[in-house]
Structures are given as C-alpha cells and as structure tokens.
C-alpha cells in the first residue's frame, strides 16, 4: 500500500469513509493495470482516422482535357483513411528545391479506398499546377496531409435537396459527391436525395468528366445536370453564359420556401464563388443554406478594402524570421505575395493544409511590423491583438519580424 502511509494522512483515519476509500483503492489495484498494454493505442487510433501524413505514389496519370489531368494516388503501406466526399488533401511538392504544397479536392469517391484521385487544372500564372501537369509521372512519390475540410454534405441539416454550382476544376469535389450518392443509394436504398449540378466551364474543350457525367445522369434519376459554357465556339448549341439569378430561377423555380430548403454548394475559382454567392443572396437564399469551398489566398490583395493606401503591389519589404532555437534569418518579399509562399521559397516553412486561411495550421506570430489579413483569414478573436496571423493568407505590409 504505497500511498496511504504518509504521515500527513494518518490523521485522516478519523474521517468517515477514509478507510473505505483505502479499501477500494486496494481492490482496484488488484484488478487494475499500469496501462502499459495500451502503449501506442492512442497514436494508432488517431492515425487510422486522421493520419498527419500520407505516403503516396502516383499509380496513373489520366488525361481529362487539354488543360486537366487526373493524378491517381495509391498509399504506400497503409490503407487510405476514410473521408467525406468534398474533402481535400494538401499535397506536398518539391519543385527545384522549393518545398511547398497545394490543397486539392479528392475527386474519387469515399467508397474507393484503394486510391485518391486528384484532378488538376492548369492555372495560367500558376506554379504548382504546371509542375503537376508537366513533370509528374506514374511511380513518383509524394507526401500529403490526411483528408481535411468542411465542404461536404452534412446529413444533420443539409437535407436531401442539393444544388451544386461548379466552375472549372470545382467539378472535382462534385464528382466525388455524385459517385458517393450513387454508392449510398445502392447500399441503403435511400433514394430521397437529389442533386442538381450546374457546371460552368469557359470553353467546350475544358469540360472535365463530360462523358462520365452524361452517362451517370442517364443512369440515375436523382441527378440533373445543367451545362454552361461562358465562351462558346460558334458551333456550340447548348446553354451559354454565367450562373446568375435568372438562370437559377429558371432551373430551380422562384418559390422562396423551396429554395430555402435546398442546400447550395459552390466550388470553383474565387471570382466564381463571389459571383454565385451574390446571385444567391439576391434570390434571398439564407447564408445557412450555402456552403462555399475555400480557394486559396486572394490573388490581388491590393484591391481589397483595408489594404494600406500608399502601398503598391510590387513594393518589397524585409521579412526577419526568429526561430525558437535563437537563430535568425532574413529575406525580401513582395507585399502582394502570401507570407507562407515567400517563406517557403526562402527555405522556411510552417505547417499547412488549406492554404486558404481556414485551418489555422500555418499560424505565425508577427513580433514587429504589420501584415494585411484579408477576410479569408479565419482568425480567432484574440489573434490579431497578439499579432498572430495565418501566414498562407497574410501579406506583409511593412518590414516585419515573425516568430516561427
């Protein structure tokens, strides 16, 4: 009995119930363990659901369109963790010595546990997309985060009447959701759900998964697809234009109550998000019936409200990095480049996943100077007062010193 004998406690024998508690302790010791048999259990349980890193290998490169490929990633060693259709992984890359990463939605369905598909569209002035499209081949190895993000169908309140507004590569999570619905219907026979996909592309040649989606629409009653081309060729006979209020009213009706019962998912380029969200607002659809996927840092922070007046996009500032081990580093950065990107280009890093201001993994503390935090930065209410920012969407607006 190791614990009860200490002098200060001896007097407690006068307390009613003290002896009973000691007896209980002895009883527990007899049947208890020191938990050594549970070694590793917490880490293993977490790793099966939410691994921090996945080791992936490209098993196939599928040509979708002239500007888009689907890279198929298999896991090395482990089974891929489950995910919810609509979620993304953050893919780490090393491009000529620069360690960086980009989030991509998983375009394959959750039922497919053998691989994840990522559908990559070329971004004209991009960096990582060119590398993934031009340099990556079967057999190449990558690391990624586990599946993340909050853009998925939540059965608790999303309901069964779904509308997905996809622009360009925004079709990737939509495809995952559609196949997921098919698989679910097959297993649960719960056929009440329906999905109306409005899929906008710039050019006819740009339309990703065209044949597959057309086939699925034919085979499944729950799925309706409206195709939209914004810059059609002369011979194009389908719908043209943008996803605006007029179109949505035509497709979905104008009964507000019915509209309110639907759940709208928006995924595409930032301008597409903003435009669609505006149109829905115009139709008086409540914010709670609209889910918008995050989509990276703003491309032109200098055009946003709150940006310092006298600062031009091409201005440069000095960034000083203080590490916990006491060492310091320094580099120059453009004010319109996200801090995380310039850090990575200069050999520094911060943990990251969404690269859109949402997940807060890339938090760093600004000890001197100032940064611009756009509305993408989902900071906690006390962050700004203490100088914490989300480096993936923070722009240095003066010489700064940060702690990593």
């Amino acid at each position: 009995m190791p614990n009860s004998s200490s002098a200060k406690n001896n007097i407690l024998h006068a307390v009613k119930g003290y002896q009973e508690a000691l007896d209980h302790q002895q009883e527990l010791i007899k049947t208890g363990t020191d938990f050594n048999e549970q070694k590793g259990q917490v880490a293993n349980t977490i790793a099966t659901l939410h691994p921090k890193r996945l080791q992936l290998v490209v098993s196939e490169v599928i040509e979708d369109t002239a500007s888009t490929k689907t890279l198929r990633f298999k896991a090395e060693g482990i089974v891929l963790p489950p995910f919810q259709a609509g979620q993304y992984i953050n893919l780490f890359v090393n491009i000529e010595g620069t360690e960086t990463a980009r989030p991509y939605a998983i375009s394959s369905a959750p039922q497919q546990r053998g691989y994840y598909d990522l559908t990559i569209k070329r971004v004209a002035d991009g960096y990582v997309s060119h590398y993934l499209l031009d340099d990556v081949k079967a057999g190449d190895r990558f690391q990624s985060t586990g599946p993340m993000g909050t853009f998925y169908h939540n059965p608790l309140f999303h309901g069964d009447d779904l509308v997905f507004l996809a622009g360009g590569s925004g079709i990737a999570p939509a495809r995952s959701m559609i196949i997921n619905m098919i698989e679910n219907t097959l297993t649960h026979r719960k056929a009440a759900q329906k999905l109306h996909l409005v899929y906008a592309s710039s050019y006819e040649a740009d339309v990703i998964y065209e044949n597959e989606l057309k086939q699925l629409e034919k085979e499944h009653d729950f799925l309706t697809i409206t195709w939209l081309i914004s810059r059609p060729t002369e011979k194009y006979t389908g719908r043209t234009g943008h996803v605006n209020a007029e179109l949505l009213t035509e497709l979905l009706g104008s009964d507000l109550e019915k509209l309110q019962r639907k759940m709208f998912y928006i995924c595409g380029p930032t301008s597409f998000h903003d435009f669609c969200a505006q149109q829905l607002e115009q139709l008086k659809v409540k914010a709670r019936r609209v889910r918008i996927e995050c989509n990276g840092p703003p491309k032109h922070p200098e055009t946003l409200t709150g940006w310092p007046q006298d600062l031009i996009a091409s201005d440069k500032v000095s960034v000083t990095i203080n590490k916990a081990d006491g060492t310091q580093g320094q580099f120059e950065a453009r004010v319109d480049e996200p801090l995380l990107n310039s850090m990575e280009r200069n050999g520094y890093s911060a943990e990251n996943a969404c690269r859109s201001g949402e997940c807060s993994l890339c938090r760093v503390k600004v000890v001197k100077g100032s940064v611009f935090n756009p509305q993408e930065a989902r900071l906690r209410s006390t962050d700004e007062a203490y100088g914490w920012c989300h480096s993936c969407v923070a722009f240095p607006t003066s010489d700064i010193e940060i702690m990593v």
Partner: protein
Amino acid sequence: MTDFDAIVIGAGNAGLTAATALQRGGARTLLLERHNIPGGCATSFIRGEFEFEVALHQLSGMGTEKSPFIMRKIFTDLGIMDQLNVVEERELYRVVLPSIENKDHEIDVTLPANIKALKKTLIAHYPDESENIEAYLTLCEKLSLECFMMLPRAQKTGDQTVLESTCPLYIQYGLTPSKDVLNEFFTNKDLKAVIAAYWCYIGLPPKDIPFCDLAVMIYAYAAFKPCHVQGGSQAISSALLESFLAAGGKVLFNTGAEKILSEDNQVKAVQTEHGDIFSCEHVISNTSPLHTFNELLDIPTPQQASDDMKSRRLGTSAFVLYLGLDCTPEELGVTAASNFIIDDRDEEVAFETMQGIVDPTHTMLTCYNHDDPTFAPPGKSSISLLCLQYSQAWQDLPVEEYAQAKYDFADKLIDHAERVFPNIRKNIEEVEVATPLTMMRYLNTPGGAIYGFQQNTQDAAMFRERINAIQGLHMAGSWNGMGGFQPTYMIGESTARAVLKKLKNTQSEIKQQELSHA
C-alpha cells in the same frame, strides 16, 4: 549549462500556467505543443461566422471584482488579469426532465447564481423540504470553508485532535458518497436530481463522488459566481501564452515531444517529433501519466508510477455538438446559459448510457451568448450540446462506419435536446461534431478522457504520493488532481512554484560549491 531550465510538454491549462509562472519566476522555459494553438481543451475554432468554445462551460473560482477569489489572484500573478473581460453568469443552471406527452415538463427548475436566491428558489419549488434545504445548503457552505481553510491546516499539524476540533463536518461528511448525504437530507427525488446536477462536471454519479466535491461545487459556484471570459477560454490561453513570451519564454507549436531522455533516474533532455533534442533540468508534463511514463520516458515505467496507475481507471470523454444557430437565444427559448436535460432522476441510469453508443439520457446544453451577447453574431446563437461518453465503443467501430455513427448519434442528441428547445435543427447554420475520438485526437489523451482519471474518492490527491522516481520529472494536469479549469490552472501554478524552489536550491548549491572551491 542546459539549453533550458525547464521544458513544459503540452500547452493545456496546466502547461500554460506552469510555463508562464516558471518563465516569470526566472526559469528559462521551453513550451512544446503538438497542436497549432495554445490551450489544449481551452481553445476555440471557427466555422463560418462562429467562433466555438471547445470546452469551458462555467469558470469557477473567479469571484467578483469587489470580492475576488483565488483565480483572480492567480491570473494577476501570471500577468493576464487586466486582459480578460470577465462575464458573470446569472444562473447556475436549469434542469429539465421533459414530459413524454406534450405536457408541462416533469421537472423544470432554474437555480440562480446567488446563495440567498438559490435557497429561496429551491424552497419555492419544494416547500415541504424547506428545512432540509436550509440545512443542506448550510452544510455545503460550512463544509466548503472547512475544505478551503481548516483541513489543509489540520493536515499540516498532523494532529488528529486539531482535525477533530476544526473539521467536524469534514469528518462526518467529507468522504461520504454524495448519494448517501442526499438521501439523508432529502426525500423528494426531483429535488435530489436538481441539486446534484453538477455531477456531470465530475463525470461520475453521486454514489461515487465524495460529498466534499459536490458540496464545494454548488457552494463555490453560487457564492463566487460561474463566469465566462469574452473570446472564450481561448482568450485566457492566448493571454497566458503572450505573458509567457513577453517574459522571454520560447514556444514550439506543431511540435510534439517524442522522448524524455533520462540518466540515472534524472531528467536530462526532451527530444521532439522533429528530432531536435533540448537539454534541461526539469520537465513538467501536462500530458497523461500513461503517455508520460509508458511512452515518452526512455526507461521502463518506474515501479512507483506503475503502482499508482494500477488503482486508477480512465475517466469519461464526451460527445459534443457545436451548433451555430440562425436564431436568437430568446427565439430558441433559452433562459439560462447552462441546461441539463435529463430523462431519469437516477444519475446511475445516465452513467450506464455513457458506456456505449446508445440513446442519450442526459445532455447538457450551453448557450454562450445568453450572458454574453458578443459570443455570437447578432441574431444568432452559439450552442454546445454535450453528453458524457466513454470512448471504447467508438474505438471498436470499423473506420468506414465512423462518420455515419457520428451523425446518427448527433441526430439523437439533437432529438433529445429538442424536447426542451424544439427549433434547433431547422435553425442550424454551422455544426461540428466531436466524438470521444475527436477529443483523443486533439488532446492526445487515452480514451479521449477530458477530466483525466475517474475521479472517485480514492483518486483524490490526499490518497496519493507525489511520483518522484525520476528526478526533475513533474506531472501537472487533470490526471494528477481534479479535472476542470480551475483545478488545472491551480496545479500548473503550484507545480511551477515547486520547480522554481528546486531550481533556486540547486543554484545556491552550485554557488556554494563554487565558493568553497574558490
């Protein structure tokens, strides 16, 4: 010289408090945290327009500005009191036992956060027991004072006669099962259920809770007011971190400790998950002893720690829904921040249901913007809907079934709460579901435990010796004291004090050696 005087593993309440007190006390301190933000349980997260409080329901021990209690002093000493906007809560809680057929609720009682008003309210609801209520509340008050003041003194003297003369109530009631005391004082089952509702904050039914714990809780909350802080517990965590950094402390986020390196049963260094090794004299572990001794320490678990753990049982975890609602608290029918919705007057029934993934019988709904309108966007409500639950059933599920099981149970929890607050589901704007495995992921605790070990009578500190088998290794957190906010802040502070004292002693020893060599 070592890299640091002390390394704190984990930035939960106890870790942050310990690190801040150490650094401000002159010890060169490194704080390691595997997550990306400070706080452990005491954090928040953002969904849409909402910033959700993860864990804090009612902060105890603050007192008011006029009559401050211990937590204000601790926060002042840590240099953060002036940064906190404290919000006093008006009610302790509301208990509802909903009727089955749309009639009036079988029980519906709201207890105000004020001793006198509390007594009045209880008597108004249960006039037949007015004398018992008076006697019971008087006992709670006197027993609390014995626990705060007299008992520690008596223990110091080691003199039984002192104990007998100064702590008569403690001797009679302190360690008696709460259930027995409730039965001794009251006959009305409703009243017993209403007055014992805080058992949830401990996680065991009243038959397993020593009465001193239950008595102190109701008395202290009523006398010193339950509080909240604007910005949530994250505001406290962030302020502590800031104070730590301002004093010169170093912190590494996204950096778990991987090994505690020792030599001749003396702490030498800590190795991080990234492979860095930092030498130090003291390690304060804010993580569980299971993780600390069985996994982090580089030698087999010392006998002393192993023996101690054998008499412990894992405590409960929780299933929580964080709800951002598109309606005001008034529209929802909220009249108190903290609400217990119960199906049965017998807490043991609820405790039974905590073991598996079965229909909840006991839920707790907290509305954060009832007392603090800044806690949600205008016109909306920030709610947490919680039910205590052990993790085993979740660990046993195949991973493919996890998501569906999570939503199914969340649905039931909403159904349960909707019998009192009928319009939850149709107003949901944001929702996040946390299961016991979510707790495990973010807290790294076995079983996703939120209060540490099961807090039955023999679990208390007075039945325990400090585990000192490894020189320089100290435990601070819910696992070696009580769970909850106030206890963990306090244990962080007291552990830091002990370590500072040791550091001072070794420094003066070194000085003396240098002098004698000179």
